[in-house]
Each structure stands twice: as C-alpha cells, then as structure tokens.
C-alpha cells in the first residue's frame, strides 16, 4: 500500500473474467503518519481505508470486465461491516464478485480476509464512464502494470 498516494492494492493475484471475480493482496504498512493519529498508542488501519481498498479491488474487476475502456467511480456502500481491528503490517486478501452489471454501473460484493478470517465485507456500487481523458487511462495502465494486472486475460475474452 502507498497510503500517501491512495494506492491500496499491491498485487492482483487472480482475475477471472468468466467467473466475474478478482483476488488481490495488500499489505498495510508498518508505519504511516495516519497511525500517529489513528490512534495514539493503538495504531489501526482506518475503517474508511479498508472500505476504499474494497472499492479499489472492485474497480480493478470492472476495468477488466470493460476491457480497460471505462473508469469506475465509487457511488455507494451498503451493508459495510468492519468486523475486527486491522493493525499495521497486516497482509490483506481482498476479493470482489459481481452481483449485478447494469447500464453504466456495477453492484459488487467485496470481502477482506486476514489469515483466512473475514475482517470486513460490503456491497458497493460503482458507476463506470468512458475514460474522460487519455492521461487518466495512461496513468491507470501504468498502475495496472505495477500491480500485475493480467492484460493477457483481456485478450482471451
């Protein structure tokens, strides 16, 4: 994770476009200024960032499903649950699956597991729009390469 850049996903482990699922991993850093305030003496990964990590996981799945033609934007969370504390240095396994693909939006179910134990889950809605600028798409492609987005999976669809 690069919290200061809001990049919460480290690596795409598996992207299954037929099954409409994604599995990614993310490592909560050992140190960050965020932990100085959240909380002094009890550093915890903020719940809103856990939710954001589920949104980013879901977002990469939509990018795969739309063959890198559309950019996802978070629109809504429902039934978000933060089940236990997540401390610095924790490795997160995140998964997302498509609940529904609508016209210009996806409804997803996302989960975060730590050592096989569910620590957070949510239903979320992402709007998607055609990439509004070439620069944004280029940036996303660079980020995709950095997190090992399997571009070859798109060619096989």
């Amino acid at each position: 994770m690069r919290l200061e850049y809001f990049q919460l996903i480290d690596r795409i482990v598996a992207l299954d476009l037929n099954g409409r699922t994604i599995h990614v991993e993310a490592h909560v850093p050992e140190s960050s200024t965020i932990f100085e305030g959240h909380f002094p003496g009890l550093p915890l990964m903020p719940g809103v960032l856990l939710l954001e990590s589920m949104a980013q996981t879901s977002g990469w799945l939509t990018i795969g499903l739309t063959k890198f033609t559309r950019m996802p934007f978070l629109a809504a969370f429902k039934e978000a649950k933060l089940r236990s504390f997540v401390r610095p240095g924790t490795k997160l396994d995140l998964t997302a699956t498509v609940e529904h693909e609508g016209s210009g939006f996806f409804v997803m179910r996302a989960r975060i597991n730590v050592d096989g134990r569910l620590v957070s889950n949510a239903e979320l809605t992402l709007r998607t729009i055609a990439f509004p600028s070439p620069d944004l798409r280029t940036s996303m492609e660079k980020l995709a390469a950095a997190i090992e987005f399997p571009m070859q999976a798109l060619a096989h669809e």
Partner: protein
Amino acid sequence: MSSTFDTVVNIITETCDIPRDTIKPESHAINDLGIDSLDFLDIAFAIDKTFGIKMPIEQWTQEVNEGKATTDQYFVMQNLCARIDELVAAKKA
C-alpha cells in the same frame, strides 16, 4: 401495465422513502418524485433484478442529451413501465 407499475412503485417506495400515494402513472421520476441519479441506480438495480432485464439507462441518457428523445419518454412512470414491458418481451422473444 398495472402489475409492472405496482412492482416499480414498490421498488421506489422501498428505495427512496417516497410515499406510495404520491406516485402516479403520470409522475415524472426525476421532476415530480425528486429521485436523484444515485437513487435511480438503486432503483435500476432492483428493476433489473426483479424483471431479469438490463435497462439501457446510458442509451436513454444519450438519446436525451442528443435531443433524440425527451426525459418524459423514459422517466414518466407509465412510460418507464412500458419500456420495462418492452424489454421483458424482447427478452422472451
């Protein structure tokens, strides 16, 4: 039309906290009922799932933006229900 209308009214009342008796066949979902775009996503999700269709909201929006259609054609309740019925019929065909 009536059963589709009743189903859509149920979805709207459950999604948006709009009183049932304010929703009429001639009501405009946006202009009269005040449904915003985010709530409409929830409504579209529920309609898609309930009727087993995918409402082409982006296409409708594009047609309105290009002046090829009016919002009334898609967002007045009785017209919305007619569009839903057409999509259901097209899926069965």
